[in-house]
């Protein structure tokens, strides 16, 4: 019998700890497949951050470093400057990247660090049980905005991709989603492109990936996917914010 689908070599044979229906598993697979397809798995170094993905260094088959909360872009900077010919990526959530690590992500992009950032935006703090994130939508109920996010008291969501696109060093910025197979295919293309931009030495690349958190959203997985498609995308429109025009060879 012929195998038509199997584990990617980019992920080790270890069960993940993610909740059922969470899209982190999909994003892990896309990154792992991209590394294999581009044949860079053996010379890629990843950086795990703090949040639900704190220990994904155990899952990826490439060399991995675990970073303090929000500091992954600074840690990746140190690694990349030592190994400029290797590919270096960070995997960060919205609390890590858009709250505590805002300075690190902005300045890594401003310096044009040749790293790739995969930014999972699920509009909530997952790991610590559903607190409001900088990306939480207006009116969204969380454990720290129990009556819905009130812009008067709690401000407005941060659109990271739009903000990053103002920085010349951020040469590739795209927002994608994982809510259906068509969008997953598009997300895969974006992940590959981020690595290729880095491999070409063009500068900083960031892919914002709209993700689900059924557990803390209080929705089942299909309803979570619908919520991304119908509600979240209105705040976070998909698209290409910075495009370095790569040769379409690979």
């Amino acid at each position, binding site marked *: 019998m012929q195998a038509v689908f199997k584990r990617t070599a980019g992920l*080790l044979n270890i069960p993940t700890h993610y909740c059922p229906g969470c899209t982190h598993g999909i994003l892990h697979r896309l990154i792992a497949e991209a590394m294999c397809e581009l044949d860079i*798995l*053996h*010379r*890629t*170094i990843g*950086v*795990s951050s703090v949040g639900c993905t*704190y*220990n994904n*260094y*155990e899952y*990826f*088959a*490439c*060399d*991995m*470093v*675990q*970073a*303090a909360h929000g*500091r992954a872009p*600074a*840690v*990746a*900077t*140190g*690694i*990349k*400057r*030592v*190994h400029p010919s*290797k590919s270096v990526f960070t995997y960060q959530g919205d609390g890590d990247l858009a709250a505590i690590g805002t*300075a*690190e992500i*902005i*300045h890594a992009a401003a*310096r044009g660090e040749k790293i790739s950032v995969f930014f999972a935006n699920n509009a909530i703090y997952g790991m610590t049980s559903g607190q409001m994130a900088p990306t939480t939508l207006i009116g969204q109920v969380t454990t720290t905005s129990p009556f819905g996010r009130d812009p008067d008291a709690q401000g407005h969501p941060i659109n990271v991709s739009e903000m990053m696109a103002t920085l010349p060093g951020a040469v590739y910025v795209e927002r994608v989603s994982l809510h259906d197979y068509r969008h997953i295919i598009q997300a895969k293309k974006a992940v590959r492109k981020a690595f290729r931009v880095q491999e070409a030495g063009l500068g900083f690349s960031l892919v914002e990936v709209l993700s689900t958190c059924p557990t803390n959203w209080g929705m089942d997985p299909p309803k979570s996917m619908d919520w991304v498609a119908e509600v979240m995308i209105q705040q976070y429109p998909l698209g290409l914010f910075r495009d370095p025009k790569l040769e379409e060879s690979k």
Partner: protein
Amino acid sequence: MEKRVLMKGNEAIAEAAIRAGCRYYFGYPITPQTEIMHYMAKRMVEVGGTVIQAESELAAINMVYGAAAAGARAMTSSSSPGISLKQEGFSYIAGAELPAVVANIVRAGPGLGGILPSQGDYFQATKGGGHGDYRNIVLAPASVQELYEMTIEAFNLADRYRMLALILGDGALGQMMEPVVFRDKEPIDLPKKPWAVTGTGGVRPHNTITSIYIKADVLEAFNRKLQAKYAEVSRREVRAECLNCEDADILMVAFGTCSRIGRGIIPIAAAQGVRVGLIRPITLWPFPSDVIARAAAQPSVKAVLTIELSCGQMVEDVRLAVDGMKPIAFLGRSGGNLPTQKEILQKIMKMVGR
């Protein structure tokens, strides 16, 4: 005759780091240590190294974390308020067992304090500062020549034990100019680092650098391993200088800039018939407790005087070392002031009942 170069203390640190094979410096400006980054910015270009002026001290120490994880000799430097910000990184570097070097050219605190010399970061340097059970090697130079030599030593110790080595200077040492002889003992032989993240090359399982252990038993086992390492450092790496300690009436304990002042007291007190000895801790962690205890135990010693540029920090370790054998006195100045020989001498005369 050996060639002598007149240098600022801060510059000597930078030159030493480069001669020790450090090619990655990450910093953020703060007085009175910024000359380290100025010097690095020019000199690193000549040796093909990297200098990044980071967006914050937090980012700088985390760049060091990344570069150290990648297998390189890397350092950062700062002064007290900036070192406070780096404490998160200190704890992670300890937890991930990474070799790294940091220089703290201490200024007076707390808060923004002032830019003048101080030793008020002794507690922070030797007792932790960041969270969790960890230690840093802390070296206390007392001259520009020693800043040079101990920076090289810091890199060697950091690599040998896979831990952070901290150079604890002060604003006076960083800013003063003295002649330096570049005594490069042997060519730099960087140790192999098979644990570093370099890409698997397709020939080995993936390397991971982490400080998180969710299971209690696993974390406790890791803590035991760290403590065993710290015990080995305590056995092997204690350094102290003893001057005139034999049969001393009064024993002074002072490090860094204070030890220079204390050294000058010895002949002056002798001229007045009081034999004063000086113990200068060179490693503040591991602390030379045994050296102090042995010297204090001599029947001749009436009391021990700790002199610091603080309101009394190292004196607690001196008290623990002496363990009630002899009375402990303290003389400290703060805010950036230095004790004068006159006030130290007055204190000593009072202690011997004159």
